[in-house]
């Protein structure tokens, strides 16, 4: 073996000196950025838990607090738009902590030249999405950048929610034996966006699954408090969500390929484009880790709720292969489901 100094292959991407698109993919590069750039300077035990939301006690109440930015292209797509997505995304991050959403903020970064009518449509959609939940948008901010420095509209939303008494959701609570429930078919959002952007047409129309999940979460918690953790598998897809839980909880996860629902249109597009639905973004799905004795009743509650109609049991938590997610193929073999090193679909949400 030669001396490593002689290799002309460059330093790994992860320690490159510039941001690449993959840093925003929700995969391994995003995690490394967090670990190497932010966490060393932000001294917070709450942040260090790296949950989708910060949950903390305040004068006897348990509050959930979260923020998310939305840079989706195109701004309007089948099944939603950047406005509804910005509301749903943050509400869902609160919901994954078991919280009932209370208030949102909305920050807009607008590109010079944007048509006001376009912004009006976005605002109208945000308002409608917030009313439906209901959650109030109580504060906001607007900045304009020069033409070329942005891409139409970027939105940041921040949300506060209230965690009901007795609800404790955290990856740290996940343990071997827990069962893994998925609320419905995966990949709809990512493929709907990609189809819109690349002009791919399907024989049937595919909508983004963008939807608020707080109602489904409340229905699940109403039947059992033995739900350990939840994740909404947005960018990075189901694979990233499962890998995050596996590594935070120090457990292994085994899932059954044949149990994971994927719509025909999504499968077809993925086959055509060489993508794996396990890595494609969702905006209205959740994956829940549930104590084995509670799984049946939670699954039944999910199926009674419109957002969880197609909910399924996809796998189980194990102590045999810590921090690895394995998938059992229909052939009886197993393979690793890894976190992506970078981007599969650049800038999808």
């Amino acid at each position: 073996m030669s001396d490593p100094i002689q290799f002309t292959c460059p330093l790994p991407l992860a320690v490159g000196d510039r941001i690449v698109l993959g840093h925003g993919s929700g995969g391994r590069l995003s995690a490394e950025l967090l670990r190497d750039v932010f966490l060393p300077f932000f001294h917070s035990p709450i942040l260090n838990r790296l949950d989708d939301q910060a949950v903390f006690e305040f004068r006897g109440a348990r509050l959930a607090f979260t923020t998310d930015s939305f840079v989706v292209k195109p701004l309007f797509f089948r099944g939603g738009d950047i406005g509804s997505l910005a509301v749903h995304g943050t509400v869902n991050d609160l919901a994954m902590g078991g919280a009932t959403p209370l208030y949102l903020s909305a920050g807009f970064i607008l590109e010079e030249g944007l048509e006001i009518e376009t912004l009006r449509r976005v605002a109208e959609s945000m308002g409608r999405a917030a009313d439906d939940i209901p959650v109030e948008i109580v504060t906001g901010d607007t900045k304009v950048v020069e033409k070329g420095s942005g891409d139409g509209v970027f939105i940041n939303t921040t949300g506060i929610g209230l965690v009901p008494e007795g609800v404790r959701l955290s990856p740290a609570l996940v343990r071997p034996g827990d069962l893994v429930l998925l609320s419905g078919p995966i990949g709809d959002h990512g493929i709907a966006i990609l189809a819109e952007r690349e002009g791919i047409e399907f024989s049937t129309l595919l909508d983004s699954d963008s939807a608020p999940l707080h109602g489904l979460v409340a229905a699940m918690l109403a039947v059992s408090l033995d739900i350990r953790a939840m994740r909404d598998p947005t960018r990075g897809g189901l694979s990233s969500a499962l890998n995050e839980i596996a590594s935070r909880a120090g457990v292994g996860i085994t899932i059954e390929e044949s149990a994971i629902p994927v719509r025909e249109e999504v499968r077809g597009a993925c086959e055509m484009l060489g993508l794996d639905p396990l890595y494609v973004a969702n905006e209205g799905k959740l994956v829940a880790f549930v104590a084995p004795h509670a799984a049946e009743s939670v699954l039944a509650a999910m199926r009674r709720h419109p957002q969880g109609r197609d909910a399924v049991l996809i796998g189980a938590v194990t102590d045999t292969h810590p921090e690895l997610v394995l998938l059992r193929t229909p052939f009886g073999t197993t393979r690793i489901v890894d976190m992506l090193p970078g981007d599969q679909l650049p800038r999808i949400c």
Partner: protein
Amino acid sequence: MKYLDEYRDPALARRLVAEIRRSVTRPWVLMEICGGQTHTLVKYGIEELLGSQIELVHGPGCPVCVTPLEIVDKAIAIASIPEVIFVSYGDMLRVPGSHSDLFRVKAAGGDVRIAYSPMDALRLARENPQRPVVFFAVGFETTAPANSTAVWQAKREGLRNFSMLVSHVLVPPAIRLLLEQSANRVQGFIAPGHVCTVMGYEEYEELARRYKVPFVVGGFEPLDLLEAILLLVRQLEEGRAQVENQYVRSVSRGGNEAARRRMMEVFEVVDRNWRGIGPIAQSGYRLRPEYAAFDAEKIFGVETISAPEPPECISALVLQGLKKPVDCPMFGTRCTPATPMGAPMVSSEGACAAYYQYRRHAAPPGAQT
């Protein structure tokens, strides 16, 4: 899903596996050529199913992996020119050159775009007449028809701002090189289905005759590959060395003649350097002199860029089927898809990357059965 599910049917797979196990009386070493086939075999864990008598080794059929360092360096040099729009298939962006990769060129301000077809690059050239648009034409015989058609079309339209950086490679010369090595262990080949869709399989008949080695043209789904393995095993057990076609739904003996005519109108055969293997005579394509006006190497003066291939890992041995990815001491430690030390780790279709992505939890294949 029609045309997919029937090739992934677990019950049919079990029947084929049982038939393969029944047919085998002694050990055989088989090689698939195409990276797409490698990916399927590793993703579905097919070797686990076959028993200890059959060893699958993975050939040099990942075009991204075998693209030589100097071509990647040329791509990086061109993509770094401010006015250039550089268009590439997605998985070339992560491939490390001597000092950088296309992702970093993009991050530093280069206009690097991902396309699914060279026709997208052609469209960009029409839409941006004032800017040079360069397509990175990498691939085996499979992508050559579309790439040659893009150049042909550009010439017909008189598009002066379109050009191509060509790094095409051909499968049969690489197989010939493998078979002429005294250390060769491969006893039967799964020939690449998509390459044969274009080229037909007469070239492989010549190889089978000359080297007395059986070939089965195979598809890319699990059942395709199991059936191809079964056909190969039967040939080997019966002492035959023929070319059989498993992938009949796509491949005919004569291939796609119209596509080949177009390719040969635009390209000519040339010696090529293969990353991890070295130079192979008459193993690739370049643009014919009549199309020199579309040759990005000439237009941007990067012909003289050369990069010595580093004494990389054990990729040459892996690409020739002499070693498995897991035999390398750097596998999964210093060498991962995020930190590739050599050719087969750089693309998801490379053998090392496929093992890393799907199978690093398992004992070395063969040890399990």
